């Protein structure tokens, strides 16, 4: 697999073409929203989370935005991770999750993303070798972290 194909794995292209969770849910009680921009390329995302009545779990993630295939796939994979967990993710785990994702992406190819933890998003491991693209992959996850903090 050459460099380009390890970056743009089939799973990434699939997610970017058929994104999960794209289309913002309406604002409601227990929702919080974050808007993030990458000033270098102008990519942007608006991401909304909904938490359970007791605030202990994230129960929905939706988003809208425009950007490269990496940024679109990354947002979609975040949503599919929540879907794989039955649509409920303990709020307490979200910061560890985002921190682990960030650490792997900044590792310049040293730390692969564990599929057991990150699901489809593990396919983004290759991005960490392309420092100029790390922000593309991080955009949705930064928005997620910020929205959860506001919820």
């Amino acid at each position, binding site marked *: 697999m*050459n*460099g*380009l194909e390890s*970056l*743009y794995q089939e799973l990434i*292209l699939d997610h970017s*073409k058929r994104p999960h969770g794209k289309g913002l849910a309406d604002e409601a009680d227990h929702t919080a929203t974050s808007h993030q921009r990458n000033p*270098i*390329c*102008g*990519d*942007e995302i608006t991401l909304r989370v909904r938490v359970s009545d007791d605030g202990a779990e994230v129960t929905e993630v939706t988003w809208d935005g*425009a*950007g*490269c*295939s*990496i940024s679109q796939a990354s947002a979609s994979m975040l949503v599919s991770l929540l879907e794989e967990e039955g649509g409920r993710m303990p709020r307490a785990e979200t910061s560890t999750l985002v921190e682990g994702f960030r650490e792997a992406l900044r590792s310049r190819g040293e730390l692969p993303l564990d599929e057991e933890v990150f699901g489809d998003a593990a396919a983004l491991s290759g991005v960490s070798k*392309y420092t100029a*693209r790390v922000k*593309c992959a991080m955009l949705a996850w930064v928005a997620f972290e910020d929205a959860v903090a506001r919820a």
Partner: protein
Amino acid sequence: MVRADFPILGERVNGQRLVYLDSGATSQKPQAVIDAEVAFLTRANSAVHRGAHTLAAEATELFEDARDTVAGFVGARPEQLVWTSGATAGLNLAAYAIGNASVGRGAPASARFALRPGDEIVVTEAEHHANLIPWQELAARTGAVLRHIPVHDDGTLDLEAATAVIGDRTRVVAFTHVSNVLGIVNPVAELVALAQAVGATTVLDACQSAPHLPLDLPALGVDLAVFSGHKMLGPYGVGGLYGRADVLEALPPFLTGGSMITTVTLDEAQYLAPPQRFEAGTQPVSQAIALAAAVRYLQALGMPAVHAHEKTLEARMGAGLRQIDGVRLLGDASTGSATGEPAERVGLWAFDVDGVHAHDVGQFLDSRGVAVRVGHHCAQPLHRRFGLTASVRASTSVYNTADDVDVFLDALSGVRSFFGVSA
């Protein structure tokens, strides 16, 4: 033309020959420029315009010789060239000097530049942020109103609208000679005539013309103009602000401090004549000397020959891009513009690839050794006007070849199938 003079072009990128098509962002440097900076730092480095020792005298002489050379390159006299750290610094200098005049600094000579609430500053829709935001800020500080000249769908300026926008209240008209996104040479003479008819000061961004066209700033008739060293084969950290002699004479300084004064008391200071009035503090000495080497290199090639070479590349690239499915050129005025004439261009094309984001296009081309710019190129309003947030830009310089263009076109023709947008 001269590939062998540029050592970096011998580098391999991702195992491929480097095809550098990002000179609009920054140009590569010929060995003569690298050598000039090293030679100064190795043999003559010293503080300029101070000190009585031999090296100080030699450094000052080299620094002022560099000013002669670079001023001559744009048709100006040395006292008409102010060193800056780059074009952004030059444009901010112009905006802040006018702002200082607006609060009475430098009066009475500077009074003709003073802005009052309701006065108008005019820019174009195609400006780089560096020739937009300083004017937004100046308008906010003075109560002036910022207006703009729109561009047509084909990328040319709407001169009919310009006639309406530039009016009695217009005090400043700031515009780019060549858009860093569209590559089209703007009609400087027409805009200067409109500005002069209402007594407005003209400010020209010559960043994308100075490296590519014969440039005679006094003949263009603009009051102020800026250019950037690193885009014209020179080093980073140096640029030029050109001014008509009477304009520089009348403007108050922006940055103040050492090396720009005659007499200083604890209460006030008297300032030197231009260009030193605008050169407070330590100057980019080794960079200016290396920029002079870049200018001599361009002069040896001959700017008419440089322009002709790049026109050939631009035409080849434009024709090739039009053949690739899904590619939309930004500002393609070569097939009948609003003026009825093909627009004059430099070797620069920005484009959108249907279904593939600019970042992904750039990454794909990089894997083939082709370096292009992706993003909004510091021109968000212009991208918004074309319904985009980002585009891909390929830009040439003296060292590019027809083969570079062909490698780029061949690589680009595979991008949509790689991303599964076309068969």
